[in-house]
């Protein structure tokens, strides 16, 4: 009887222990739920109604044809619907380009894709409804954000929670077509907004506006408020301390494609010092998007770019020094980020915390022009690409250093690069390499008769997650014009950490390359 009593007590203790353990887990789950719900409850959201003059997109607008065969305007999207904390968010329909080959007539077929923009603090629940899709699979980039999409196939919706303002891209059913770009910001503090009464401030509020090209003067600020769509291009020349900022859109769809003649570069700065570009969105450029030429002490932060037309490079940093570029999203139909020498030497250029989607050409490129100005002792030095996520790269190398002139290219760092998906070698790509480092002579891009050198290239923590398992290449021009001092550390190729050139599938030219170290 005594034994039975002890047995009952032990069973009861075990039961109570289990009850306590379950209780602790339930408590933890409930606490997490409470914290999340509190974050949502305490969240703040600012949504911007789009201009009422933008036309609703119809089926013809979504045809994949050249821009002379359909309306190229920025439109109001009608097949993708977004709510944020239960409130409808305006969705734009802008142009993108899935063509993987160059068109000599500057008229490649172009497509469209939806874009949503809002600001928030705390945590927000986002629901995306795409009635025309079956929605088997949704990928939310950057994958490092760890966002879990909840798919409701019957309702054609995908729901997820965002806890950090930033740039997010939804790709449906493993297709790049009609991917949804969501550009979010922290909510603007009133004290951070420029004073519209200030004579040095040019301010555009919500709505659709068209003005002639804007040339900024020393000390001027151009402010595009959230909900603003401004059709123009902005430039500054030989001045200092200018700023372009806000939550609005700078749109180039009113200009026809430049076709090698007249480029209305949306953000063009020449010989400037102390320029800032912050937080705006640039769509539908008629050529490349950001040009900084012979500039120093520039800051670009939070800029979002989508370009679809020929020569639509995202950011072309030409002969600049001390340029800091961070927190940007670039989707481009030519090089996403490129550093060149057109005149002075380039030095101290940093790209950090960037997301890239490169529909054509290269994601991160130095060159080809390294001394187009034919200056003596030309150099490109101290260029850093760090914490970069490449969502997609379809055509030419993801990482490239191409020295096509007589410059010395030195101290180039690629660190913490994640390539979520690449299809390098698609279309007419003549450079089907994942990484390409070379001293070359090129009929299109070389300006000097002599060749240069590349020294000191570091590739640290580069991770190719998914894609075409192509070769990479390191090659100098000859025994004197070499690539030297290349370090590869923490290179992961499609799930495998590689330790040597063979594993990494890097072709190294025997007589024109110096030291290549794997660590």
């Amino acid at each position, binding site marked *: 009887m005594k034994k039975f009593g002890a047995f009952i007590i032990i069973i009861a203790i075990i039961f109570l222990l289990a009850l306590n353990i379950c209780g602790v887990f339930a408590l933890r789950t409930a606490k997490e739920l409470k914290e999340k719900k509190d974050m949502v409850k305490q969240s703040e959201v600012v949504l911007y109604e789009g201009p009422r003059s933008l036309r609703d997109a119809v089926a013809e607008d979504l045809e994949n044809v050249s821009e002379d065969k359909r309306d190229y305007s920025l439109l109001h999207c009608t097949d993708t619907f977004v709510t944020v904390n239960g409130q409808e968010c305006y969705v734009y329909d802008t142009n993108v380009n899935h063509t993987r080959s160059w068109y000599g007539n500057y008229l490649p077929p172009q497509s469209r894709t939806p874009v949503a923009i809002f600001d928030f603090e705390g945590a927000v629940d986002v629901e995306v409804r795409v009635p025309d899709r079956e929605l088997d699979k949704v990928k939310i980039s950057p994958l490092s954000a760890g966002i879990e999409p909840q798919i409701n196939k019957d309702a054609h919706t995908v729901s997820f929670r965002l806890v950090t303002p930033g740039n997010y891209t939804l790709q449906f059913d493993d297709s790049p077509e009609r991917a949804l770009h969501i550009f979010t910001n922290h909510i603007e503090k009133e004290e951070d907004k420029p004073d519209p009464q200030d004579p040095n401030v040019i301010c555009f509020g919500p709505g659709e506006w068209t003005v002639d090209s804007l*040339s900024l003067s020393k000390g001027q600020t151009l402010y595009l408020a959230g909900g603003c769509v401004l059709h123009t291009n902005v430039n500054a020349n030989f001045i200092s301390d200018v700023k372009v900022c806000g939550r609005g859109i700078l749109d180039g769809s009113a200009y026809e494609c430049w076709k090698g003649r*007249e480029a209305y570069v949306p953000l063009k700065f020449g010989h400037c010092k102390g320029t800032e570009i912050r937080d705006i969105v640039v769509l539908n450029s008629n050529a490349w998007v950001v040009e900084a030429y012979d500039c120093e002490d520039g800051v670009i932060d939070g800029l979002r770019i989508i370009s679809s037309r020929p020569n639509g490079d995202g950011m072309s940093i030409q002969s600049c020094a001390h340029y800091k570029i961070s927190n940007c999203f670039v989707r481009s139909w030519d090089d996403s980020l490129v550093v060149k020498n057109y005149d002075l030497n380039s030095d101290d250029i940093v790209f950090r915390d960037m997301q890239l989607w490169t529909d054509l050409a290269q994601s991160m490129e130095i060159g080809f022009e390294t001394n187009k100005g034919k200056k003596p002792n030309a150099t490109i030095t101290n260029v850093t690409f760090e914490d970069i996520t490449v969502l997609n790269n379809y055509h030419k190398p993801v990482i490239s250093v191409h020295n096509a002139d007589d410059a010395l290219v030195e101290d180039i760092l690629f660190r913490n690069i994640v390539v979520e998906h690449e299809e390098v070698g698609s279309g007419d790509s003549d450079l089907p390499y994942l990484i390409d480092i070379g001293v070359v002579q090129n009929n299109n891009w070389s300006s000097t008769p002599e060749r240069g050198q590349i020294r000191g290239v570091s590739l640290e923590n580069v991770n190719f997650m998914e894609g075409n398992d192509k070769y990479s290449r390191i090659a100098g021009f000859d025994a004197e014009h070499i690539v030297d001092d290349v370090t590869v550390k923490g290179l992961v190729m499609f799930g495998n950490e590689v330790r040597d050139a063979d594993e990494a599938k890097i072709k190294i030219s025997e007589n024109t390359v110096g030291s290549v170290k794997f660590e």
Partner: protein
Amino acid sequence: MKKTGIIIMTLMSLSAIVIWGIVWDMRSYAGETEYGEVTVVEAPDQTESITPARFVREAFVPVVPDGVNISELARFDANGFNDVYPPGKAKDGKTDGPSYWEGEADAYPNIFTAEFDEPHRIHAIKLLLCPKTIWGARKQTFSVEVSTDGGDYVGLLPEQTYDFDPLTGNELVLEFEEIRAMKLRLIFTGNTGAGGGQIAELEIYANE
């Protein structure tokens, strides 16, 4: 032993009651989500894109000096040029796009010369830059000299800084006492809009 067991059971029962009590209290969080403040910034009523009044530009009427533009009779040359902007582009009748002369960067003075086969009696020159607003306002500093017989130059207009502004056509007319000239040159020493002097078109006026 039995006593200890009962104490443990009692303590564990109490803790279980407390824990599950808190969990029960938090059950409301399993319900519908309550959202925070959402602000919607409204767009103005409009049916088409608008140009704000301050950006509406009045049409500029170009200034045309008296006489005839004889620049077609002159050969244009310079002591250098930048990139793809040679002196010949200053008399091709175009001011748009890349159709202009630009002196070699950072190599002042940039000297632009017009030379005739025979002397002409001139009384005005007109300099034009691209009139589009993409060419922002700038100041160019230069002097003008002439050679009456193809030999030495004499000063015609002293060095001065002139405004070029797309709001006023990006053009500049300089009139002077009629003078016999076989050669004319502009000596640039500054340009706030580029690395060298710039001329999209140079017109030279004579009463012929």
